[in-house]
């Protein structure tokens, strides 16, 4: 049997002439009808370029230099634009990465699905509208008829991504290309969306090319895995084989990095001096009855409602929950970025809730924050040296001492001194987050609030940054308040964890307690949402076993 999609020797360059940079250097793979194939690699590996090249939807500076893309007998590389238009949408569906920018904000979502149906299947306006509602129901959006009449901004990220999946499947294509379809979503939502996609593929016999940076997601969902590194395929094979016995060194690194694939807290690297303080009785951070309400009267929403916890010095306490659970609001109140309506925050036994002005500025020496988005939290006009030096300058450290400290900090976050003169745009995501961590440590704080510090990073980079955080904690006796939606990440760094939902803490306990005897259904759902869990712990998850 011939494959549905056969790619041979595909090469793509960015730029032309001497400035040309090869992004894809001759890849071969195939996708059979009804099969789910995952293309796995880090940012910059060329995996997204491959996905876009298949539909000839590359940015203008990218050029296909050679190879063959044979889809059901036609070579898409040489096909006319008119022929391509008949294939796109009708026979090959596409699910883009970012649900917030991929829908037209001025069109009702039902109409956006109906548009494709009218174009490719020639349905009449009322028929297309009716079919669109059916599709919305089929992708698992409750109350489909009402939702079809809504605009994208009225839907959550997860629902928007389902609509995009609906558009991809609307014309019953033979192949759907999904480019990081869930990277922008919370862990629980990610699972639901992927479940729905897998079910659709099974029900319609659709082949899926799933592009992802997360090997665990690929392991859960795909029949076969293709690992891409520097524009080349370094390994491919059946999902179970690749995971159980990775052949290439790069694949082994990816397997090691996937948080869902191994359990337990990361240990400090060998050679890191451990100066962890003896756990004393009084906690460094004590939060009591913290509350914050937005809006007034009937429209008041309690973002955080009576949250309390205590964090011993030198340990990591994590808050886990999905968007809107109040975890970030809690962290921001602890860091005194926003004012709580009720409750107190005690640092080292002293109430810091009402601290203002100069005293609040002095408090910044003791509490520092690392943000989710390392690009947004670094001033794009500043060099690395100035960024890291900024807190030192703010507190009047001398020039020579500042320079020495900056170099030392850069070394501690394992960045080369050459980077000092770079600006954020010239750094990778992982490097940027290391700069943000170095800056947070400049004032030698006791408490570091980490608000989703690795969510914007590739899985393999996530692990390196988490390891760095664990090492720094051991070396300096730091206390972390760690915020994440991903229990897989939290498991790698936390001592204690609190599960938040709707502004309240549902349950709190040590990492082991919460993982092995969750008291709440919602916690069990979060645990079940960690990708790759079925592969790592088949016994624990019961019926679900690796496919094939």
């Amino acid at each position: 049997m011939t494959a549905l999609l056969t790619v041979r020797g595909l090469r793509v360059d960015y730029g032309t002439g001497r400035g040309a940079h090869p992004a894809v250097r001759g890849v071969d793979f195939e996708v059979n009808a009804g099969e789910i194939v995952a293309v796995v690699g880090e940012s910059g590996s060329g995996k997204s370029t491959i996905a876009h090249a298949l539909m000839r939807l590359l940015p203008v500076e990218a050029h296909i230099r050679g190879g063959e893309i044979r889809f059901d007998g036609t070579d898409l590389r040489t096909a006319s634009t008119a022929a391509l238009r008949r294939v796109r949408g009708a026979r090959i569906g596409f699910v883009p990465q970012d649900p917030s920018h991929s829908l037209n904000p001025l069109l009702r979502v039902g109409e956006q699905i109906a548009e494709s149906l009218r174009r490719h299947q020639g349905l009449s306006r009322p028929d297309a509208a009716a079919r669109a509602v059916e599709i919305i129901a089929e992708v698992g959006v409750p109350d489909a008829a009402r939702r079809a009449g809504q605009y994208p901004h009225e839907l959550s990220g997860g629902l928007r991504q389902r609509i995009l999946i609906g558009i991809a499947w609307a014309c019953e294509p033979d192949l759907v290309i999904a480019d990081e379809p869930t990277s922008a979503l919370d862990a629980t939502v990610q699972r639901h969306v992927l479940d729905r996609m897998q079910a659709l593929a099974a029900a319609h016999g659709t082949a899926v090319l799933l592009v992802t940076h997360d090997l665990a997601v690929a392991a859960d969902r795909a029949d076969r895995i293709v690992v891409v590194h520097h524009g080349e395929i370094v390994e491919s094979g059946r999902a179970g084989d690749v995971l159980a016995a990775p052949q290439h060194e790069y694949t082994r690194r990816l397997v090691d990095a996937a948080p869902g694939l191994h359990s337990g807290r990361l240990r400090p690297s060998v050679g890191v001096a451990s100066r962890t303080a003896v756990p004393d009785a009084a906690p460094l951070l004590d939060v009591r009855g913290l509350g914050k309400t937005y809006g007034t009267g009937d429209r008041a929403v309690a973002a955080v409602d009576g949250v309390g916890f205590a964090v011993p010095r030198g340990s990591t306490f994590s808050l886990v929950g999905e968007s809107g659970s109040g975890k970030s609001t809690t962290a921001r109140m602890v860091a005194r970025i926003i004012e709580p309506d009720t409750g107190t925050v005690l640092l080292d036994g002293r109430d810091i809730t009402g601290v203002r002005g100069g005293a609040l500025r002095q408090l910044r020496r003791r509490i520092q924050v690392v943000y989710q988005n390392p690009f947004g939290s670094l001033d794009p006009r500043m060099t690395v040296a100035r960024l890291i030096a900024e807190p030192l300058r703010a507190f009047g450290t001398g020039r020579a001492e500042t320079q020495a400290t900056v170099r030392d900090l850069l070394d501690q976050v394992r960045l080369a001194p050459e980077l000092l003169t770079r600006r954020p745009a010239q750094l990778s995501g992982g490097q940027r987050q290391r700069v943000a961590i170095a800056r947070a440590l400049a004032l030698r704080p006791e408490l570091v609030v980490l608000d989703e510090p690795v969510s914007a990073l590739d899985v393999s980079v996530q692990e390196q940054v988490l390891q760095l955080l664990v090492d720094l904690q051991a070396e300096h006796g730091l206390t972390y308040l760690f915020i994440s939606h991903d229990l897989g990440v939290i498991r790698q760094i936390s001592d204690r964890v609190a599960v938040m939902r709707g502004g309240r803490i549902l349950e709190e306990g040590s990492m082991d307690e919460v993982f092995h005897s969750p008291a709440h259904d919602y916690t069990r759902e979060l645990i079940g949402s960690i990708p790759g869990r079925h592969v790592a712990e088949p016994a624990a998850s019961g019926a679900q076993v690796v496919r094939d």
Partner: protein
Amino acid sequence: MTILRRPGLLVAALVLAVVAVAVVAPQLIAPYDPFASVGSARLAPPSAEHLFGTDHLARDVFSRVVHGAQLSLSAAVLAVIAGLVIGSVVGLVTGYVGGPVDFVIMRFVDVLIAIPGILLALIVVASLGFGPLSIALGVGLGAAGSFARIMRAQVLRVRAEEYVEAARTLGVRGPVVLARHVLPNAARPIIAMAAMELALAILSVSALSFLGFGAQPPAPEWGALVSAGRDFVATAPWLSLLPGAVILAVVLAVNSVARSIRGDR
């Protein structure tokens, strides 16, 4: 993207280069003394000897235009700087402080913008007295409102950026955050707008001088030169037309360069 591929921009840049020389060292370009009569040829038409002809006092008009660049342009530049500084400070403070301060000040700015610029300039000139300096201040005040609005919008955008909040959590003082993070990141559109405003300011300054509120004779000034030629339009039209054409060329050149700063084509 090089300047050579855009002939329009190249011409504009050349015009501005010549004007810059005229401002710094007019004697390099001007063949005659702008204040002294050159022989007996009064109201002579343009010729190789007198490019723009001569006026009713037999002075070389081209030399007067070249020497006038200094007065006209320095008044226009001063006007833009005045508008830029006043507007930016107002926009920066209101945008960053917010709340009732923002509301009250921006209503004053609305009123300022509602008054036509030339009328506002006339009011300032009337209260400060005639002269290029008061013209500059008047025109600058007229532009300050728009500068304040743009600056405020930029500050509101930048203030919401995470790095500004991050700077506060690092313990950086408020005014330092404003100067080091907010201002540099808000500045680019303001600079582009200042360049656009310069073209407008040249026109406004010339217009006010034309009306006789600016430099007094015998000082050469572009608007005043156009005005002086009015009495001879029937017999010697070049006296008004050629200085007017120079104003037009410079305004167009400034506009073209300003648009390239803003990033338009």
